[in-house]
């Protein structure tokens, strides 16, 4: 690596001397020493300058980001900016972008200063990513270029500024005011202002020609969130009920609360229908990665972005991105981020082909769609593929089994509703064996909880350990007690009326390897409950699950982490699921939605959940009130064993090539924190 880094050293020296001249003073000879030990000196080049060296981590409001003014004040120097030398070329690739102004005019007047993890990087290179398909398995790579108002920092607790410079709440958490950056520009150079935020909300989200029904994610209590523009850089969100969780939403959601008003205004001025323009350029899917107008050449441009890279080419094989010339972050040396020139994403639908690409070192970074079961394979090829594979904790990754408590077959419903049945099914599972065979020992047997214990305070050991001890005799005793006995002597139990008892377990391998299902089947068969397995596609699984057609649903218990449940109550309330992760109590949901006119009446304690959850949403996460109410919610879930969990703290492989630097201490693998977004991937750079 040292041999190859010759060019890098030269670049660093140039960069360093630029800072030196900018901040004045310092010893010109020093920078040559720097590249030898970049990891130990995060703010390296700045440190060469007497004044700037005063900035130590922790002095600012946040661990590793600063507002420019704060940074300059602490460092006692005036930062001057430099940009990617290839930017004119890259800008030429972006649709109808105008000529490139100098870098000083491209970065905001108030840029975000990022302290790199390892070192100030060098520009250039193409980042290689794989997704499964246009809209499948893409969040991994989306997160690399993603921006939003705020983000979770790499401690996964603190929320820190990003697009928004700062924000403040009123006393009762019904109004939050975001302050945007002075001089922030879209990727085409047009100013980004609070009008773009209001435009997103008022013209798109609330436009009934676009969304026939107002989306649930802007509805709180009995009303809708509203957006007020205070001035160009100040925008206020007003909620009908206390909604402290919205900041978590803006830290973790793929939905960006701003759209380029000037772009759509121009399209309308050019004679395009507004709704048509929104449909074409914004897309109306549930997901953000909808095919762009470039695919199929419906248009030769895409809407401008605030993200670190912008789409310039799209085919059915993949997508290509180049760096955003107006990106709002700079490093401590005043270099505009991102460092990486281009990003190339290809679709690889086959998991084994993806594995081969990874082991050949052809994928620069990957955490999604790979699993611990392939860890030995990745580890074997670490050296020849020139990449590193680490393990990180997956949160919200506990596989669960939820029996359909509102099953259309009354006999089955009665059986599933019997708590003894769910307890028996839980203790019939040998979790230690699953952990060893499937998770290679890298997980902890754990009961399912609607809040992930690693991300909230109110999940106790009692919750996690409820009914997880393997006890086949106990399971048999409970089932016998229910009157489910083996009448015909085939080793399998019949229903109390003598008709056969059979459970069909439909699963998709997207939720985990099929072997887990084979093991679970064997445990339940051993307890005398005939279980048949059927592998289906995830679409088929979801279709069947959300239409109340499943006997038992099984998926990863996602949408259960702190930042999600403070806002999104899908997992807390019937049907205990959502479109991507079907629940198992649709009859209860219907009963509630129709005020008891149709559907199935839930038990009394489940009905209590509605009030408890409404209360839970009113408190900021981590407050004493929040923890008290949260504990009650988890109590009801676990006491009823609404879902049966297998294991938590599951370790997941994290792969990145060795040429990728500033990768950061990636410790939590979760979509709920928007994967790599907390790590600020704009600072990633290549050493070659």
């Amino acid at each position, binding site marked *: 690596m040292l041999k190859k880094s010759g060019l890098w050293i030269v670049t660093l020296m140039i960069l360093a001397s630029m800072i030196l001249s900018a901040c004045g003073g310092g010893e010109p000879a020093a920078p040559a020493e720097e590249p030898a030990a970049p990891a130990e000196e995060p703010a390296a080049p700045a440190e060469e300058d007497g004044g700037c060296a005063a900035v130590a981590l922790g002095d600012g409001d946040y661990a590793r980001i600063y507002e420019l003014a704060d940074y300059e004040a602490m460092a006692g120097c005036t930062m001057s900016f430099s940009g990617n030398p290839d930017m004119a070329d890259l800008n030429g690739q972006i649709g109808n972008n105008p000529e490139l102004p100098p870098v000083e005019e491209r970065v905001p007047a108030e840029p975000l200063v990022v302290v790199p993890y390892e070192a100030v990087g060098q520009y250039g290179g193409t980042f290689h990513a794989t997704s499964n398909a246009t809209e499948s398995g893409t969040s991994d790579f989306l997160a690399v270029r993603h921006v939003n108002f705020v983000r979770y920092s790499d401690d996964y607790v603190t929320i820190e500024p990003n697009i928004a410079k700062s924000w403040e709440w009123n006393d009762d958490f019904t109004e939050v005011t975001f302050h945007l950056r002075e001089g922030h520009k879209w990727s085409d150079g047009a100013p980004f202002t609070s009008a773009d935020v209001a435009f997103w909300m008022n013209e798109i989200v609330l436009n009934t020609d676009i969304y026939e029904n107002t989306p649930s994610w802007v509805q709180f209590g009995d009303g809708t969130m509203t957006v007020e523009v205070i001035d160009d850089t100040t925008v206020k969100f007003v909620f009908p009920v206390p909604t402290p969780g919205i900041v978590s939403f803006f830290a973790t959601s793929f939905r960006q609360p701003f759209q380029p008003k000037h772009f759509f205004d121009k399209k309308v001025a050019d004679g395009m229908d507004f709704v048509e323009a929104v449909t074409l350029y914004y897309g109306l899917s549930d997901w953000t990665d909808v095919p762009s107008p470039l695919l199929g050449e419906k248009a030769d441009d895409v809407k401008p972005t605030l993200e670190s890279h912008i789409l310039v080419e799209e085919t059915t094989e993949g997508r290509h991105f180049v760096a955003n010339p107006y990106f709002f972050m700079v490093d401590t040396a005043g270099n505009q981020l991102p460092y990486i020139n281009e990003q190339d994403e290809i679709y690889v639908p086959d*998991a084994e082909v993806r594995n081969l690409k990874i082991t050949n070192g052809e994928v620069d970074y990957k955490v999604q769609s790979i699993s611990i079961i392939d*860890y*030995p*394979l990745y*580890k074997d090829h670490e050296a020849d593929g020139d990449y590193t594979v680490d393990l990180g904790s997956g949160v919200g990754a506990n596989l669960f089994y939820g029996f359909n408590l509102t099953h259309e077959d009354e006999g089955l419903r009665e059986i599933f509703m019997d708590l003894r049945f769910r307890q028996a099914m839980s203790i019939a599972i040998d979790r230690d064996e699953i952990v*060893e*065979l499937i998770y290679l*020992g*890298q997980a902890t047997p754990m009961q399912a909880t609607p809040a992930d214990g690693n991300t909230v305070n109110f999940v106790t050991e009692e919750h996690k350990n409820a009914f997880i001890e393997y006890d086949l005799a106990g399971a048999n005793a409970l089932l016998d007690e229910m009157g489910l006995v083996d009448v015909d002597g085939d080793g399998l139990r019949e229903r109390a009326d003598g008709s056969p008892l059979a459970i069909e377990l439909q699963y998709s391998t997207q939720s985990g390897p099929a072997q887990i299902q084979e093991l679970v089947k064997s445990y339940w068969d051993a307890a005398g409950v005939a279980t048949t397995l*059927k592998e289906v596609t995830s679409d088929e699984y979801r279709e069947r699950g959300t239409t109340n057609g499943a006997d038992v649903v099984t998926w990863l218990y996602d949408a259960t982490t702190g930042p999600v449940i403070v806002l999104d109550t899908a997992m807390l309330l019937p049907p205990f699921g959502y479109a991507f992760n079907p629940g198992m109590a649709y009859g209860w949901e219907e009963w509630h939605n129709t005020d008891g006119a149709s559907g199935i009446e839930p038990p009394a304690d489940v009905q209590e959940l509605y009030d408890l959850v409404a209360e839970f949403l009113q408190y900021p996460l981590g407050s004493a009130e929040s923890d008290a109410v949260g504990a009650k919610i988890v109590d009801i879930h676990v006491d009823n064993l609404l879902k049966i969990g297998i294991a938590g703290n599951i370790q997941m492989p994290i792969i990145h090539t060795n040429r990728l630097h500033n990768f950061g201490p990636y410790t939590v693998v979760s979509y709920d924190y928007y994967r790599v977004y907390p790590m600020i991937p704009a600072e990633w750079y290549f050493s070659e």
Partner: protein
Amino acid sequence: MTPTDLSPKETQAPINQMESEEAQRYYSATQFQLIWWRFRKHRLAQVGAIILITMAVIGLFAEFFGPYTGTTRVSDAVLVRPQAPQFCNDDGCTLRPFIPGVISERNPETLRMETKIDPSVRRDIYFFVEGEEYKLLGKFKTNIHFFGLKEGSIHLFGTDSLGRDIFSRVLLATRTSLSIGIFGVVIAFVLALVIGGVAGYFGGGLDYAIQRLTEIVRVIPVIPLYMGLAAAFPKEWSSTQVYFAMTLVLALVGWPTLARRIRGKLLSLRGEDYVIAANLAGAGPSRIIGRHLLPAFMSYIIVDLVISFPFMLLSETALSFVGLGLRPPTVSWGVLLQDAQTVRAIEQAPWLFIPAIFVVVAVLSFTVLGDGLRDAADPYQVSG
């Protein structure tokens, strides 16, 4: 040996030199005897037949020949390598085969299961040992296995990632796959013979109706049909029922091609003099088709039949994949190979591919057997 090897020179020579008694025997032999004699000369075909019979026998008695059931998990033998029985170690040689002590351990760094062999431990292999209880031929309860250990576990083909013995699973899979292939082919064959024979012999309006029916069956897209049936199969069905249903489905979509060919052949043959002669002699249609027409192109039918076998095998695999197919704990070669089609298996557990050898051997055996049968059944072989 290929058909050209049995050139007239070669086959006629013995006849010319035959003693009169032997010649007598030859000319008075039935067709079956003639086929048998010719088949006896086809060594390769006999090898194929012997292999297939062996497979059928071990498949039939899979629980007896396999030391474990297909779903038994041995927790301290996960992903162990195949073990070869040996007679000698450092202490000398014995008549009784044994294997060294084997245990699987997870490498703490790579998390890979590694097979640790302890040569100091000797595990004797016994024959007709008591093991897990099973029902021989589905009827007789017993716990005697052909071979096994009294202590520890033996895995001739290694184990999979859940610690299941691949040898035992392959034997069980052999039964499933072979029987699906054979039953499927046989049912399709009978259907094709009857339908194609009737259509070809009678012709006219009946032929027209049957041809349209054949076309209807042929234009049904197979995968959607399978998927539709998969949804229609009741979930209470046991794996045995699913298995029979599958065989039937395979057969019901498998007959039209052969039926078409038989019909075409019969259409051209039914005007031959010997058919007319048989007709005049008062033979009924079934006798004429069965005795006079079909044997005329028996060799062709045999080739077609044999080609169908690998097709049935592959169809079974495809069906298992779309969910209509076999479900655990039933295993077939296709199901076993599905476990093996990962990069992980290729690199770190290549023994999961052992079932593929069985597929290749079975398909090859059927091919050479078919080749030999074709030669043997060819009525023009001797005279030609």
